[in-house]
């Protein structure tokens, strides 16, 4: 009832662990893999990065703020984590980021070599200067990044977008035209927290990325916008929805907006260890109560 296929990857349910969440270490990921349809690794770059100092993650009243700063051990040190992560049995999608277009090809190649089942290009990390944001907000850049990766690997390539843009449809079109196997929306929104008593920003990096329940209406809208455009243009690649999904209903809403699968991140703060299992159970209940026989039936039903 929950199983589905995304760009050839077989998922036992449509729930994918979002990049940057509990994926520092392969062993943690393989634990989650038991409950999830697939896993995305943290975004890995050419060199190791310590990222920003603490506070790097702060829970706010309605969401989570983070400026982890693409902390990662560097692609050369990542083979083992992929191997470990795969032990859980779910497909592993290697996320990569780069400050130059060719970097995406190189990093994607490495991920394939390590055994990743697909690659996700993080075109959108908002809080590292020169990377992310600037890179991913112009269709030309999306095109060159995706082309670099697609020409380097045989496994599917997904492009993940920033929501800090006014033209997500053109980004999605650019990814499609460059032969991406799917698109992922959304990454975090640029945000910040200021503490009035201390009179200063809370995050060490001052500005960070905003995720969690608060951003769901924004992610839903962006997925809906891409899906509407794909429908009109008869584009058939899948959309993976992400942003604030905390319950089974949230996941269903994203799928009704046009997502073929969803990613879950900040929800692990609100619902703990068994987040994936809880959400999967809720999806199943919803489907049964509403008379659907497969989760695939809900995809795009809210599109006009």
């Amino acid at each position: 009832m929950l199983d589905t296929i995304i760009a050839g990857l077989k998922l036992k349910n449509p729930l994918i662990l979002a990049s940057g969440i509990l994926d520092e270490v392969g062993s943690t990921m393989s634990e989650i893999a038991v409950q999830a349809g697939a896993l995305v690794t943290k975004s890995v770059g050419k060199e190791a990065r310590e990222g920003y100092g603490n506070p790097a993650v702060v829970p706010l009243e309605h969401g989570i703020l983070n400026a982890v700063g693409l902390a990662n051990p560097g692609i050369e040190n990542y083979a083992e984590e992929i191997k470990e992560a795969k032990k859980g049995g779910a497909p592993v999608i290697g996320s990569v980021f780069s400050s130059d277009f060719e970097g995406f090809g190189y990093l994607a190649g490495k991920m394939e070599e390590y055994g990743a089942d697909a690659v996700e290009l993080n075109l959108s990390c908002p809080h590292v200067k020169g990377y992310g944001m600037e890179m991913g907000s112009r269709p030309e850049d999306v095109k060159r990044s995706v082309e670099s990766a697609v020409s380097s690997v045989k496994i599917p390539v997904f492009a993940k977008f920033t929501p800090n843009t006014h033209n997500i449809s053109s980004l999605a079109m650019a990814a499609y035209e460059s032969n991406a196997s799917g698109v992922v929306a959304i990454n975090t929104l640029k945000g910040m927290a200021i503490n009035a008593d201390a009179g200063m920003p809370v995050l060490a990096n001052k500005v960070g990325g905003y995720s969690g329940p608060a951003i769901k209406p924004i992610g839903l809208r962006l997925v809906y916008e891409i899906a509407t455009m794909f429908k009109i243009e008869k584009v058939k690649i899948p959309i993976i929805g992400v942003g604030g999904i905390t319950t089974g209903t949230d996941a269903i809403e994203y799928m009704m907006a046009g997502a073929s699968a969803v990613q879950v991140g900040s929800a692990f703060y609100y619902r703990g260890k068994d987040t994936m299992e809880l959400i999967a159970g809720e999806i199943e209940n919803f489907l049964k109560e509403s008379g659907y026989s497969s989760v695939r039936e809900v995809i795009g039903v809210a599109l006009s």
Partner: protein
Amino acid sequence: MRSPEPFRTVKITQVVEENSLVKTIRFQDDVDVEPGQFYMVWVPGVDEMPMSASYIGKEKGITVHRIGEGTEALHNMKVGDIIGIRGPYGRPYSLEGKKVLMVAGGTAVASLAPLAEKAVDKGMDVVFALGARDRGKLVFQKRLENTVELHIATDDGSEGYHGFVTELSREFMKKGNFDMIYACGPEIMLYNFFKTTQEMGVRVQFSLERYMKCGIGLCGSCAIGPYLVCRDGPVFTEKEIEKMPEFGRYMRDAAGRKTGLK
């Protein structure tokens, strides 16, 4: 669903110098905290760090060992200054049985002192082994003296038993039967002590440390074996510790690379 526990600021109400390297900082925070749980403590503009709650009444406390920039900044704070806190986070110690042994190495007594008090309140029989490098480094000696059966060990013999607190504890364990051993201290100490407790087949609850960024089970930086120290720990049982290949071997730094233990 877990309710959000947002970031809050508190005013420091008291600063107590425990010794040349350790200070206790007190503040009002009207939430329930269990022994073994920790706060994420923000020094505005400097750092945010995990710190065990060393006092869990209305006036909470943390007991800080000065080791780097963040803890140094905490040591420089005065009564009336502001710190940010979030939490308490983590799974606390669970009190089980009638007769228990508590083993603390250095400032790690921070999390065990409120546990000892709680155990005594519950009418349990507590033997407490408190160790430090030398007598000047002992923390909470007075606080514990009046509460539990306290035994001191110093590496240099300047007070109490001359040697490691874990050796002293081994002696007690040979003599008496303990329902549970609670321990906290440097990982090397815990690693060696774990061999002892496993050989003797006793149940344990050890409090562990890993590098923490979020404290709330999101970032994965505190992973150890299949667990997260911030969410599944910091207190772990022997069954859990057995599943941690890296226990006593390595930690990870802020980039996620493996590094040695401190």
